[in-house]
């Protein structure tokens, strides 16, 4: 019952919010917050409860639609609800003066509702239905801003339709073969399916998940969509929506097929998982270095979303305890810090009047200290600096790769991290450090309502970094569910027999080294602030506008790598689209406009029918 209540509140709340917006804006805002808060509370209530419940019967296909809750779906559901709540809170201030707010809140809540629907659905048809609802409602919000966002939205929706149709094919084919769509039933039937059929199911369904998760050759929609959406929604997009791909992959690979079958899927030495690994590695490296050459704050984050997806993939394709844990944990971590970073980018955009080009910014540390700390912690998490949550998950993934004898993959992962370090630093430096441009002299700190989600997320990043045991316990429950070996955990990390990671030790180590560094700095001479003109222009006057702020960061490196980063995939799709248009235009010419020809078509058809009937 509680699952149905959750769905009803989620969808109904969206509609009620919309209607409330027609009455007054304040009521709408309050309702939106209340609805998302209620979802968080309700979902926390079903922690560790296994429910499975029919809620609807489709008459003509003779199908029962089922809702269910298990550790996997709870894990994703709580992420969705949490980020949903925070982004709504953030929007209250961020979206204040924008137009069409009823529409905005409605769609945001609606997307959250449909995402919740996908994770708590217990059969493939309702999974698909919620998935599709999620796709089109996301489209409605991506394009919300107009301008460049329109093209981005179209790109997104077309790719996502392609993906979901592939999934539809799989689902219907499973249905017509086994006569059911219940996940657990299909899982038991699939144990006896032939290898060819299994491969068909796996490859076709992963097409859709690869698209939504933006892995390398199919990533092209993501950077545009994330960069052009409004910031609170960008954080929802890249924190949770994109990760539905991981959920789907996990569902099909481990819940439906299971390890036994996956291990059998070898064609020669190429196995299904090795292909996925390759995709993951390419995604990591490619995305990291593309992010490096971006100049747009949200685009950097968007590319990093693409790249971090690769780590998750590398984690979960190796069905070892540590790999799986690392992958899943990375999903959670990435969601926390990327949401935080998008909030940061949004706050800056909000205060500077929509500036996203980081070359025009600088020195904001003095004006927006809270935002800076949030950004610093977020970027540290992204890079994986110890004491942030990213460190633990990345550590687990590296460990898996190294212990599993995959030197190339590990190397790719490291290279990706170097790239991450570089663009992370660029992000921080260009926005917060360096010279403060004249026009931003009087900028204010982000409003309190926007600070609140940022602070919450910042704290969480650190908290999960120091006490990784809390989320890890949930994750090991997921692994138990699909009969994978769970990773033993302690509150501070991983016990000795499983590989030993104790964040308390790390904490002390870092505290001590910090203390030493602090001592060293105390001893060293104090820095002397000098006028900038002194060093730049030898004392002569230079107009402030001509100041050379931090542009062309990493210029030599960028020049070196840019030629290799041409987005071939994107160009390829563009050409396909153009070709299709051209073909369509040619086909349209069948309707020539002269009625004599039309009559000819009719007689031709008749003659053709008679011809084939006579002679065949």
């Amino acid at each position: 019952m509680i699952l149905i209540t959750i769905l009803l509140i989620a969808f109904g709340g969206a509609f009620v919010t919309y209607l409330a917006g027609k009455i007054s804006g304040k009521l709408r805002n309050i309702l939106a917050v209340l609805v998302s808060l209620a979802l968080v509370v309700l979902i926390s209530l079903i922690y560790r409860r296994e429910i499975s419940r029919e809620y609807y019967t489709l008459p003509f296909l003779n199908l029962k639609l089922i809702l269910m809750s298990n550790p996997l779906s709870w894990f994703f559901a709580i992420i969705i609800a949490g980020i949903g709540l925070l982004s709504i809170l953030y929007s209250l201030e961020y979206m204040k003066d924008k137009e069409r707010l009823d529409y905005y809140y409605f769609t945001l809540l609606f997307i959250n509702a449909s995402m919740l629907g996908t994770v708590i659905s217990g059969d493939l048809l309702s999974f698909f239905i919620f998935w599709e609802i999620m796709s089109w409602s996301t489209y409605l919000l991506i394009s919300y801003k107009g301008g460049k966002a329109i093209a981005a939205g179209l790109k997104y929706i077309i790719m996502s339709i392609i993906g979901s149709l592939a999934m539809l094919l799989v689902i219907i084919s499973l249905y017509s073969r086994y006569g059911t769509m219940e996940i657990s039933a299909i899982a038991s039937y699939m144990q006896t399916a032939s290898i060819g059929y299994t491969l068909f199911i796996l490859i076709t369904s992963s097409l859709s998940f690869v698209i939504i998760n933006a892995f390398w050759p199919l990533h092209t929609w993501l950077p545009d969509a994330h960069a052009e959406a409004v910031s609170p929604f960008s954080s929802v997009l890249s924190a949770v929506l994109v990760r539905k791909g991981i959920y789907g992959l996990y569902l099909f690979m481990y819940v439906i097929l299971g390890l036994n079958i996956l291990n059998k899927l070898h064609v020669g030495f190429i196995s299904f998982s090795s292909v996925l690994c390759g995709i993951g590695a390419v995604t990591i490296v490619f995305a990291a270095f593309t992010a490096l050459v971006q100049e747009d704050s949200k685009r950097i984050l968007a590319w990093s979303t693409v790249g971090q997806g690769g780590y998750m993939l590398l984690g979960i394709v190796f069905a070892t305890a540590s790999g799986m844990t690392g992958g899943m944990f990375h999903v959670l971590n990435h969601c926390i810090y990327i949401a935080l970073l998008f909030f940061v980018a949004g706050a800056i955009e909000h205060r500077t009047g929509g500036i996203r080009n980081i070359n025009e910014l600088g020195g904001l540390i003095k004006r927006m200290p809270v935002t800076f700390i949030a950004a610093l912690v977020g970027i540290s998490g992204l890079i994986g600096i110890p004491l942030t949550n990213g460190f633990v998950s990345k550590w687990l993934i590296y460990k898996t790769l190294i212990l599993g004898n995959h030197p190339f993959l590990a190397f790719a992962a490291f290279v990706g991290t170097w790239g991450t370090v570089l663009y992370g630093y660029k992000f921080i430096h260009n926005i917060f450090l360096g010279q403060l441009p004249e026009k931003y002299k009087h900028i204010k700190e982000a409003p309190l309502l926007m600070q609140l989600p940022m602070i919450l997320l910042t704290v969480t990043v650190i908290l999960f970094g120091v006490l990784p045991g809390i989320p890890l316990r949930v994750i090991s429950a997921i692994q138990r569910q699909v009969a994978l070996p769970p990773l033993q955990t302690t509150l501070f990390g991983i016990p000795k027999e499983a590989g030993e990671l104790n964040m308390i030790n790390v904490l002390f180590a870092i505290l001590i080294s910090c203390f030493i560094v602090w001592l060293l700095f105390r001893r060293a001479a104090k820095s002397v602030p000098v006028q900038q003109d002194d060093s730049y222009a030898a004392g002569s006057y230079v107009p402030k506008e001509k100041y050379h702020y931090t542009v062309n960061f990493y210029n030599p490196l960028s020049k070196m790598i840019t030629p290799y980063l041409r987005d071939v995939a994107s160009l390829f799709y563009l050409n396909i689209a153009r070709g299709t248009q051209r073909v369509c235009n040619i086909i349209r010419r069948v309707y020539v406009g002269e009625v004599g020809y039309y009559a000819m078509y009719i007689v031709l058809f008749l003659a053709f029918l008679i011809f084939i009937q006579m002679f065949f």
Partner: protein
Amino acid sequence: MRKIISLILLGIVCVGIIFALYSIPFGKDKIKVGKHYIYNGIKETGAVNIVTSVVLNYRGFDTLGEVTILFIAALGLGVVLYGKKKKRKEGLEPASLVLYTGCRFLFPLILLFGAYIFIHGHLTPGGGFQGGAIIASGFLLSYLGCPRKWISKERFNITESLGGLVFVIMGLIGLTIGGYFLSNFLPKGIANTLFSAGIIPILYCAVGFKVGAELAGIIYNMIE
């Protein structure tokens, strides 16, 4: 080029038709349902003209549709020619006296003949459509011969509608009395007399008026 292609296509169709017609020999007796009508037609409908009994009784619904189609054509003409400038009316030259008198003389006779045709539809060859067409030709004559004496279109419209309504209402009365739409609820009378065959003469009168009015209306529209 186009001609050659058309010829080829038509040739193929022609071959098909030739094959098809093998099993339908010409002039042989292959009537099935029709035989029933011929043998039982007078008994069942009271009309000696079997074609009429088929048109108005056995397949009366077709005829209703047919009347409707003519009605549609008249309406459609009105729609298509709506708003066209009436230019030529003034420039018409009055007809010569001989023509004028002749028209006026013939006009009632033609109407009478038409009425005869449709009233006797169940007895002799002919019927509502034929009679209506004859009536319309009378109007055509009057339009051509004496352009001043045009009858207003309003009346045509009313006649049309009334004719159609009579048909439908007769059908509905048949439904209530006889249990079937268009059933022959009036007494059948003695075959081969004028007042026989139940509702058939009534329907044919309605059809006759309607068709006459519609065709005349179409002619009017076209001439205008």
